[in-house]
């Protein structure tokens, strides 16, 4: 199982039935593949659909039905198409149960930076700031380190996405829950020890007794 699959599988376990979930582009979008068939969830694409479906068969694409990454999709029975005001009204109004987003950095306060690297990458925040400010639960899904350097830091050095403590950080090495007291290590990844995690993490982690391994 590669790192991305570990992360996607573990995040999928967090999704409750009958909720509204927004998956970011890239790694987070893989989470949908690992949802048990019996768990019914509506996925939102912030460009304007509730009830995002699978990719259409070749030749059956509709140019007017894409996900937020611009890829052709379908919609499930019971879907709704909405404009951007409704889409972000849902996100900002607290109607979105969960968002899963990629991350560049997360810090001890649970603050996320994921939208720019000054001087290098200025793509714009898109919907990320609204999602982090507005979703009931924010899950950061990212690999634990970048080129061997920790991404979970004492304090983010990159511009923040929001001043809001995210709900959970899921990497291939660990599940970490930001709390009022700091970052609590909840689970270890496959073949990874608590010490491995501490070494790969700049932020202080709170470790309570034996930390269970992810069950994937």
């Amino acid at each position, binding site marked *: 199982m590669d790192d991305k699959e570990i992360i996607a599988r573990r995040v999928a376990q967090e999704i409750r039935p009958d909720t509204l979930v927004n998956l970011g582009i890239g790694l987070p979008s893989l989470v949908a593949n690992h949802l048990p068939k019996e768990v019914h969830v509506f996925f939102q*694409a912030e460009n*304007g659909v509730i009830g995002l479906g699978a990719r259409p068969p070749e030749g059956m694409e509709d140019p007017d039905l894409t996900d937020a990454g*611009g890829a052709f999709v379908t919609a499930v029975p019971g879907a709704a198409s909405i404009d*951007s*005001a409704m889409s972000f009204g849902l996100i900002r109004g607290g109607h979105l149960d969960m968002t899963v987003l990629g991350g560049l950095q997360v810090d001890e306060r649970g603050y996320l930076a994921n939208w720019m690297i000054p001087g290098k990458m*200025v793509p714009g925040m*898109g919907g990320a700031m609204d999602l982090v*400010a507005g979703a009931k639960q924010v899950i950061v899904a990212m690999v634990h380190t970048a080129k061997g350097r920790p991404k979970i830091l004492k304090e983010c050095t990159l511009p923040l996405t929001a001043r809001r403590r995210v709900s959970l950080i899921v990497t291939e090495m660990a599940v970490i829950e930001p709390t009022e007291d700091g970052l609590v290590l909840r689970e270890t990844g496959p073949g990874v020890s608590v010490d491995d995690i501490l070494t790969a993490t700049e932020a202080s982690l709170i470790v309570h007794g034996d930390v269970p391994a992810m069950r994937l």
Partner: protein
Amino acid sequence: MKHALKTQDAADLIPDGATLLVGGFMGVGSPHRLIDAIVAKGARNLTIVANDTAMPGRGIGKLVSAGCVSKIIASHIGLNPETQQKMISGEIDVELVPQGTLVERIRAAGVGLGGILTPTGIGTLVEDGKQKITVDGKEYLLETPIHGDFALLAAYRADYVGNLEYSLTAHNFNPIMALAGKTVIAEPHSIVPVGMISPDSVKTPGILVDHLLERAA
């Protein structure tokens, strides 16, 4: 009742230097024929307000490539490296706005609000230069309206009153921008006689639409 305009005649209404609200999300739901005509007439110095600049060779990306644009207000330009290059070189001034804030700012202009208070952007670079207002102990940014000289919309179906319907994820910013352009030009896939669209299916009332483009060929 409105007669449908030829695309080129509609493009000719738009002077250099105008501020255009342009519908679309990565090119889906953008007024492609109108964009092509604006490129063809060699427009200059436009300010574009849109969710994104799509990618080179597609939708709003064509306006960027053709050098029509001097300023962009958008939430995302990450998939168009040309926009980023022109931003870095100083050819285009880019203002990045969170997507939900962008749509609310355009809506505010359209429905006569002086501004809206949002928590999005608090504690981030988006705060810079903005007034903060506390309501019920919670801090918000005051975000101000964004008006357009023109709104350029894509629609699924119109009637000759100008009533518009949209399709699936091609709604996006179009119904909101319809409220906020001084002059509103809609580019529908098809146009039907008045009375063929149920009043309950109309998402943009025709009284908001100044000009209708001829239907797609």
